[in-house]
């Protein structure tokens, strides 16, 4: 059975790109979210194997969403997606419970390696 993933980013373009990369590796994209609040809600509904979370999103940012999810589901596997140079935020996200991070622009190989680490 394919592993499931929830993709959270406020930009359609980024969501499509990630979906493309992950589907190519055999993942099933079971849901998408555009805000932090939506991310938390969809996680509860879907309980996916993997979550990709953008840091900067309206209506609850990615880091707060991570905190909220980790609070209810400490086993959640979350991969943080960040723009270049957001060191402090990435560190905060890791401290909040994200398992690993990738930096935009995405390189498919790096994304998949990071996904492996998150799930492994």
């Amino acid at each position: 059975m394919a592993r499931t993933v929830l993709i959270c980013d406020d930009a359609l373009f980024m969501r499509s790109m990630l979906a493309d990369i992950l589907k190519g590796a055999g993942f099933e994209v079971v849901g998408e979210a555009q805000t932090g609040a939506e991310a938390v809600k969809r996680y509860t509904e879907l309980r996916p194997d993997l979550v990709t979370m953008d840091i900067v999103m309206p209506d609850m940012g990615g880091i707060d969403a991570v905190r909220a999810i980790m609070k209810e589901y400490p086993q959640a596997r979350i991969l943080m997606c960040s723009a270049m140079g957001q060191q402090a935020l990435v560190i905060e996200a890791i401290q909040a419970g994200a398992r690993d991070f990738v930096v935009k622009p995405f390189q498919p190989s790096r994304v998949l390696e990071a996904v492996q680490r998150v799930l492994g």
Partner: protein
Amino acid sequence: MDLRRFLDLYVSESQEHVRLLHRSLLALESDATAIDEAFRAAHTLKGLSAAMGYRAVADLGHVLEDTLASIRGGRLKPDSALIDVMLTQADELEAAIAVAVAGPLSSDNLEPATPDSSSSARVAMPTSSSYPPGTTNVCLVRLRPDAPIKSARAMLIMRALQDRPGVIGSEPAAFDDDDFSGDFRIFLTGEADAAAIEASIMRAGDVESVDFVEPARATAPLPAPVTAAPAPAARQMRVDATRLDAIADGIAELSVLYGRMPTTGLAQNVASMVDRLGVVLGLLQLDVLALQMVPVREAFERLPRVVRDAARQAGKDVELVIEGDDVELDRAILEEIGEPLVHLLRNAVDHGIESSERRAAAGKPARGRIRVSAERERSSVRILLQDDGGGVNAARVIEKARSAGLLPHDSPDTISADELFRLLSHAGFSMAAEVTALSGRGVGMDVVVSRIRALGGAIEMHTTPGSGTMFSMRLPITLALAQALRVRIAGEDYAIPLTHVSEAVLLDGRVDGERADSVMLRDEKIPLVYMRHMLNAGGAGKEQAAVIAEIGDRRAALAVDELVGREHILVKGFDPVTGMLPFFSGVTLLADGRPALVLDPLSVI
């Protein structure tokens, strides 16, 4: 790219260019063409250090390069003040290099040395060299240079390791610093499973290399390579000095072992093999000795700077002339004479050379002149240090000695040169009216003398009031294997190095009376010293022989029970035990493998 491979090369090349930089900066004061060399040296140091990731060093090099470029372009004048500043910057650069190579590779978290650090700064340990107690191993992790957000990556690595046994800390402890370079260290105890830890780290992604070292190695300075004696077009090699030492020690032991081999009662074929062994060994010894010989230039190089700084501090005008600096000497000896030379030089500037006014009044050129020269004699090297100053005022010395209790108040008003020197080199004797910052504390000359004697050398002083003073040092060419007389005193064997021995004689018939105090040697009466008594060996001896030792114009006959023979010995220095008699300069293994104390004949005269 693994920079570790290039570290040795960086160390030797940077040292060479630092030396070049110092030399050309000093030369710049009188020779404008030295600017090109100085600029190139600074430029190269900047490039080398940047390539190694030593940003702090590269920055210092860049500053110097800029200044030198301005001088070259005619925008700045290289006056004494500017050269002073650049010399200090060169010192800082040198210290920064030492710190950089002692730390983890491409560590950017080191401070450039402060302007107050002394110019002879030895390798300074980086502040990060303290380990949590219990550390037995240090894991050096290097992230890939192109890894994004390295601090987050390092945090992930540490998080993955946090539940593993034996992981007790990291340096830096936290990774939220913007300047994190991507290199960090993890402290481990014996419980840690290195293989599992390495696998875990590598799995974390963006890791370039993982290495495990013992704490001492993780920050210990690397051994400084030494260039082999320069031959014009010959193949040259940079050699690790500690390896040369190991080889020399091994060969010395071989010769001792060879010396123990029986020479009689051997089968014919064995006897000829032993002979052949001796020949090959002898040649090998000569080869190794030659490798350890280094031109005295290496010890003389720092002297111009010493004179310059001392002269500035004393407000005097002095120039230093160096001659014969390609005479070669055993590296081990060379390393020891540096400080004595520096002290003698400072003395010469401080006390020897007079102020410009006094010199003018005496009809001398305003600029004082000190000459340091080296020349090779048959089996020794003579180093002369001569100044054209005012000479030593014997009357003042006598006066001082009397008031210090070193001479009786009714002592004669004239003394011999030897006696004068002995007084001056007495511990605690100081000629300065006030103690100056440089010298005059009275602790210098006695140390100079004992250092030189410990090497098996000798030092004399000749002075002419009004004209100047000359120190003459004679040093053995090599310490490695000295020739010594083996003598027996009260049943124990001792070695006496031949450097200060002129001959040995049998005592029969030369001694008048049972407990004579002198011996006749070719019409000359020489004071007799009973070694048995000097060594508190007790008992009445049957002294059959005497070893004639000499220094300067003084001689003494050291009476011993018997002369056992002549040997090559390797003298090893030692830390004397308190209360020990001051007559020994070291220990050695005799040919039959037994240890023996090495007597210093000069201590007895």
